[in-house]
């Protein structure tokens, strides 16, 4: 595995997956510290099995069966849609239109809800299992999608993307286990913005190649695309801040 493959597949996979793992860990921690650890750990394990099956079936089938051009077009388009969604939300957050992601607040809300549901000492804690399973599965689907998307270029890229995601998972879980508290110090909003830029950049690069368009310099165009997205995002945040006076900074739902 050469360094370029690692950089292109493993790094974005690591950062994007870390964000998702932080979110899943917050919920699992909330369940574990509120209702005990057995049920959420079983839920997490089952979700992990489900995700492994998703990556094994779709990921391996994609990189081994589907022709490369079709794959680039398909994955590039999905990556573009996925990335633009992240980028849009990140810009709206930094412009003050959507509330910033607050892991501490999410943790407090989850703990309050779990406590309000009560706990039976005699029966298996299905609530704890289902809440953990759902959280890990939902965030994990995003991780699986990221791995498949960044690994779509081939077997080496897939291995690098999986390695990046696994490293992120191990790091986040180890930190959360050591701290026994949500990882609020992680600069999630900035990471989400960075991930949005990276996903959109790779998405536009691959989807263009998928529809038969080319880039001068091929992969050397990617840093330029990233730079363009960064400048445009900065301009967009300024445009929105100019559009909305200070008093209008609300967490509007229908944007």
């Amino acid at each position, binding site marked *: 595995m050469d360094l370029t493959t690692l950089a292109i597949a493993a790094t974005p996979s690591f950062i994007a997956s870390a964000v998702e793992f932080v979110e899943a860990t917050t919920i699992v921690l909330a369940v574990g510290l509120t209702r005990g650890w057995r049920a959420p750990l079983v839920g997490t394990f089952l979700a992990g099995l489900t995700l492994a099956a998703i990556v094994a079936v779709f990921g391996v089938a994609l990189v081994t069966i589907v022709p490369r051009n079709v794959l680039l077009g398909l994955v590039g388009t999905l990556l*573009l849609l996925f990335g633009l969604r992240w980028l*849009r939300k990140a810009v709206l957050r930094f412009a003050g239109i959507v509330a910033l992601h607050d892991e501490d607040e999410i943790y407090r809300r989850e703990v309050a809800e779990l406590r309000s549901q009560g706990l039976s000492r005699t029966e298996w804690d299905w609530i704890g299992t289902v809440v953990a399973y759902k959280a890990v599965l939902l965030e994990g689907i995003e991780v699986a999608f990221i791995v498949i998307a960044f690994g779509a270029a081939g077997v080496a890229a897939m291995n690098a993307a999986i390695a990046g995601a696994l490293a992120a998972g191990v790091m986040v879980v180890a930190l959360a286990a050591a701290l026994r508290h949500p990882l609020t110090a992680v600069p999630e909003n900035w990471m989400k913005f960075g991930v949005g830029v990276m996903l959109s950049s790779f998405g536009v690069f691959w989807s*263009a*190649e998928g*529809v038969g368009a080319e880039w001068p310099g091929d992969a050397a*165009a990617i840093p330029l695309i990233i730079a363009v997205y960064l400048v445009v995002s900065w301009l967009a945040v300024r445009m929105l801040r100019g559009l909305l006076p200070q008093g209008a900074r609300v967490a509007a739902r229908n944007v």
Partner: protein
Amino acid sequence: MSDVLRSVWENTYGLLVDDGQLAIGAIAALAVTWLIARASSEQVRDNAGWVLLALVIVVVLANLYRAGRSALRHADR
């Protein structure tokens, strides 16, 4: 269980489509790029990637502007 499945579906759909107009705009930009890459000379095709990037950026900025206007209306109420 159906609740979990519904969440999985909503999350999977939401992964790609948070705002329908943005998704449709991006697909339209791809379609235009495909047409340009098919119908134009080799020199244009060699640079057609930048056409897609330009179109996508226009779509994103228009979508964000609309979002800003919408938030402004909500704040005025």
